[in-house]
């Protein structure tokens, strides 16, 4: 694979820096990291473009004109933006300024000469789209799990970027912790997913117990999150763009509807437990057991706890 000359990363969260910068180093000769927040947290690129601290007086959105100006001046061939809410916004604004589109939710990123090719899910998971951009500055949005987080030997020279004020007013009145749980399925190495096969909410604890003994995160299918509302939406697998790559996926009471299965199709091993032997998931799994989850799960939990 050919390499680009200069690849930048815009990371919002500390824990994404390493992975995205490793990706940048795979795709480009020289890497740059654009970062706002704790100084010194970002050291994984050849050059760290430090924007400044984050506070209620200065949120990431206030740095957008500074970021746009920096990218216009430095002209990296590719900017990889973290696919967080704020990252997506910045990617869109930046691309609009550069007169191009964003290659979003890239599950694969490759370089072909000076073009960047990405692959992503579309139509709610029914298909994968391969897209190519030849833009002068290509903007890609991607999340955890796409690149391996390798140790980089980057020296991390820090350049402090002068602040450019925005021409419109955004005042941060308050930040508060989001009620409820936060889940990051993308980062999970093992996933236990529950579906319609669970007829009562209290049975979900069986799946939670199994997840606890094997060290897995719990996910669910669309009906569990959207119809029954038994789980928060962040646990729902089958949303466009949510591509998971766990080592192990255990689907319990999951029928195997296409959007859900595409989301986990990159799992190394797929295990299915379902009482319906005709469930489509049995045609897409490595190991399956046709049986009652209320019999199978307590037995598995007991044996695995030993």
């Amino acid at each position, binding site marked *: 694979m050919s390499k680009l000359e200069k690849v930048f990363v815009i990371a919002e969260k500390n824990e994404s820096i390493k992975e995205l910068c490793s990706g940048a180093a795979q795709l480009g000769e020289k890497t740059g990291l654009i970062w706002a927040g704790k100084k010194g947290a970002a050291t994984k690129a050849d050059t760290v473009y430090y924007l400044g601290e984050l506070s209620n007086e200065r949120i990431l959105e206030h740095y957008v004109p500074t970021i746009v100006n920096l990218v216009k001046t430095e002209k990296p061939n590719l900017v990889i933006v973290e696919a967080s809410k704020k990252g997506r*916004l910045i*990617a869109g604004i930046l691309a*609009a300024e550069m007169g191009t589109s964003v290659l979003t939710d890239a599950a694969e990123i490759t370089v072909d000469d000076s073009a960047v090719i990405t692959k992503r899910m579309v139509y709610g998971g029914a298909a994968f789209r391969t*897209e190519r951009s030849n833009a002068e500055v290509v903007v890609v949005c991607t999340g955890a799990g796409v690149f391996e987080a390798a140790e980089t030997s980057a020296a991390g020279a820090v350049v402090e970027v002068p602040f450019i004020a925005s021409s419109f007013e955004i005042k941060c009145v308050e930040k*508060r*912790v989001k009620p409820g749980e936060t889940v990051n399925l993308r980062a999970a190495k093992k996933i236990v997913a529950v579906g319609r096969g669970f007829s009562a909410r209290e049975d979900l604890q069986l799946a939670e117990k199994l997840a606890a003994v094997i060290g897995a995160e719990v996910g669910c299918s669309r009906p569990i999150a959207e119809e029954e509302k038994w789980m928060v939406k962040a646990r729902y697998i089958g949303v466009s763009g949510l591509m998971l790559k766990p*080592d192990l996926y255990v689907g319990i009471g999951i029928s195997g509807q296409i959007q859900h299965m595409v989301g986990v199709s990159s799992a190394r091993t797929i295990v299915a437990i379902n009482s319906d032997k005709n469930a489509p998931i049995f045609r897409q799994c*490595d*190991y399956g057991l*046709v049986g009652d989850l209320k019999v199978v799960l307590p037995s598995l939990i007991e044996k695995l706890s030993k």
Partner: protein
Amino acid sequence: MKIVACIKAVPEEQDIVVKSDYSLSFERAELKVGQYDLNAVEAGVQLGEAIGDSETIIATVGTTKLKNSKLQKSMLSRGASQLFAVVDDSLESVDSYATAKNLAAVIKQIGDVDLVLCGEGSSDIYSQQVGAMLGQLLRCVSLNAVSKITPKDGNLLIERTLEEEIEVLEIQLPAVLSVTTDINTARIPGMKEILAAGKKPATLWGASDVEIISTSCTEIISTLAPPPADRMKIIYEGDSEENINALLENLRKVM
């Protein structure tokens, strides 16, 4: 307040057929209003009602399939007053930059718009980019993940639901906001609303009326359904102790 809610007409996903070469056929898939755009329309209508003396206008861009009266009624039966669209067959599957550019052109032509609302993303391609781009192209405040909008002395107080926190911002108008799917529950129009929608004004511009772009900056190489993965498919039928043990043994091997 003059509010514009943007809609994308998307194919009914249940009627998309995967062909034997893994490409997709949309022949049987009729267009419908994008699922997440319904929240943008609802947010506009609710905000307009809260402020008073307001109207919510629908803006959309797309192919001549938008001329379908059932589709237009579906757009207009949810509380909006009228519809503006740019319709040209060259706009088939253009990318998010072209879509944002064209929507910006429509919004400029509507004129004096205070607030533009978009859904979280289109329910077919779901790039979640058009709203962010549109704000920048219209040179105004551009924000996403908006889960609450409240009027405040001519400004707006908005809440954004981010990964770990809720951010409360006060912003000046004009602005482009992309709303989340849980900002509201979009209304389901009844027969009365659908009939009334047929009498609401719908202005359809062509490529000669509005300056549009129909070239994408990204090239689609392919859109293919994933071929079935090669899995081992070792299935144990029945929840006997023996079968559970066999499954357990395999589970231990892969952990």
